[in-house]
């Protein structure tokens, strides 16, 4: 085991004792892709404890941020310390971004027991930011009772959140159109809890029934029992239904804790994905940089159509030349 530098040790200590300022700065270093963080991240991973990440996903404007704000409120009332990572899209043209999630959470803007960090997705599809994995490693090493991740509302491929969060909440609204979005993209399988937000809308009950019917179809076998994800109706502007949602989230965490095999299975799944992601990133770095592990000379045979890209990839992975 490599010894942490004194500086990193200070950071680690600060984080494990809950220093928000240190956390904020470290996240920036991660976002900037500063080199030399591997050891620190490793130490942070080791310091991380039980699973406490809640993923909130759903189409744009479904009310995810407003709902997160109310969930924080309920968790705080129950004595929990909460961290939030809120991801908004980057402009594909300029790399800039307008991060608007925090604006909905101003009710907690001066609460020292709440940490809210906005993050730009930086061209990454799937609703999360590229560096979200590392940031979650940092947050998980800190004494938060819950970590909430709000994804970009992509409407399509929010499945990525399941690779990070222990419990996934899918937020939808009656306005989203006639067909229940959950039917698409296998989202049925990723979500632990369904929320029908904007329940003040006249179509809310009809929508909820539709969703319940659909969820019923997607009854899942978990270990030795059948599991049917609950559907909760909320109105996130006034907080209606949010207590119930938080109860359901807590219930889900308990169920997972009570079925160690199931949670390990889910955990393994997430780890696999995380490793794939890290490998991909490493490879990308190694391959894309011109003077890296795939110099131009090795591309020549493919250019000349003596080899195809698959062949080169296989060679590369097996370490051959």
């Amino acid at each position, binding site marked *: 085991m490599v010894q942490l530098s004194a500086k990193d040790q200070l950071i680690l200590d600060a984080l494990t004792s809950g220093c928000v300022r240190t956390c*904020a700065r470290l996240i920036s270093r991660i976002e900037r892709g500063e080199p030399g963080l591997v050891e620190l991240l490793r130490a942070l991973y080791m310091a991380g404890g039980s699973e406490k990440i809640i993923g909130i996903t759903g189409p744009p404007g479904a009310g995810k941020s407003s709902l997160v704000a109310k969930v924080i409120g309920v968790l705080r009332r129950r004595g929990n310390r909460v961290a939030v990572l809120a991801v908004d899209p980057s402009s594909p043209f300029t790399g800039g*971004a307008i991060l608007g999630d925090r604006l909905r959470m101003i009710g907690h803007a001066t609460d020292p027991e709440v940490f809210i960090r906005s993050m730009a997705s930086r061209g990454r599809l799937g609703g999360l930011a590229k560096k979200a994995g590392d940031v979650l490693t940092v947050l998980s090493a800190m004494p938060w009772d819950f970590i909430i991740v709000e994804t970009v509302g992509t409407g399509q491929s929010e499945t990525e959140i399941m690779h990070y969060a222990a419990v996934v909440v899918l937020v939808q609204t009656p306005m989203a159109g006639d067909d229940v979005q959950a039917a698409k993209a296998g989202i049925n399988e990723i979500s632990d809890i369904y929320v029908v937000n904007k329940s003040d809308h006249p179509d809310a009950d009809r929508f909820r029934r539709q969703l319940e019917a659909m969820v019923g179809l997607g009854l899942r076998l978990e270990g030795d029992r059948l599991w049917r994800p609950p559907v909760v109706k909320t109105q996130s502007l006034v907080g209606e239904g949010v207590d119930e949602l938080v109860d359901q989230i807590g219930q889900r965490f308990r169920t997972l804790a009570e079925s160690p095999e199931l949670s390990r299975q889910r955990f393994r799944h997430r780890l696999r994905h995380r490793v794939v992601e890290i490998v991909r990133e490493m490879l990308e770095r190694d391959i894309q940089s011109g003077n890296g592990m795939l110099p131009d000379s090795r591309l020549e045979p493919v250019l000349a159509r003596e080899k195809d890209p698959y062949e080169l990839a296989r060679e590369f992975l097996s370490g051959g030349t």
Partner: protein
Amino acid sequence: MQVSERIKVIISMIGLDGHTMGAEVVARLLRDAGIEVVYLGVNQTPEMIVQAAMHEDVEAIGISSHASNYNQVVELVELLEKNDLKHVKVFCGGNIPKHKVVELKDKGIAEVFPPGSSGKKIVETFLNGTRGGKWSN
């Protein structure tokens, strides 16, 4: 005018002022210059903005003030300093009388943009003001 460094700033209103369009336009200009903008919207107190600045680890804060509440911008600067966030630059835009502009700059506001300021100048000021502000450990 694209930047490769991550530059992250806050754009916010302060106090009870509700004229949001200036802030929205500036937020878009900055985004289009490659900056990440945490948009806080209306009804922010200096305390709220300071906490946001700390959580988000931003390089600068832009306040749009169209309601003669620039005294609160001064409060913000003081509070940043108290919270060890002096490196965060504060810019302020809006219909601010000329003699107030001088006063605000004296009190630590990095730049003031009166109505009619060019977008180019605003973006450049943000870029120049933040480039040096990279945090190093």
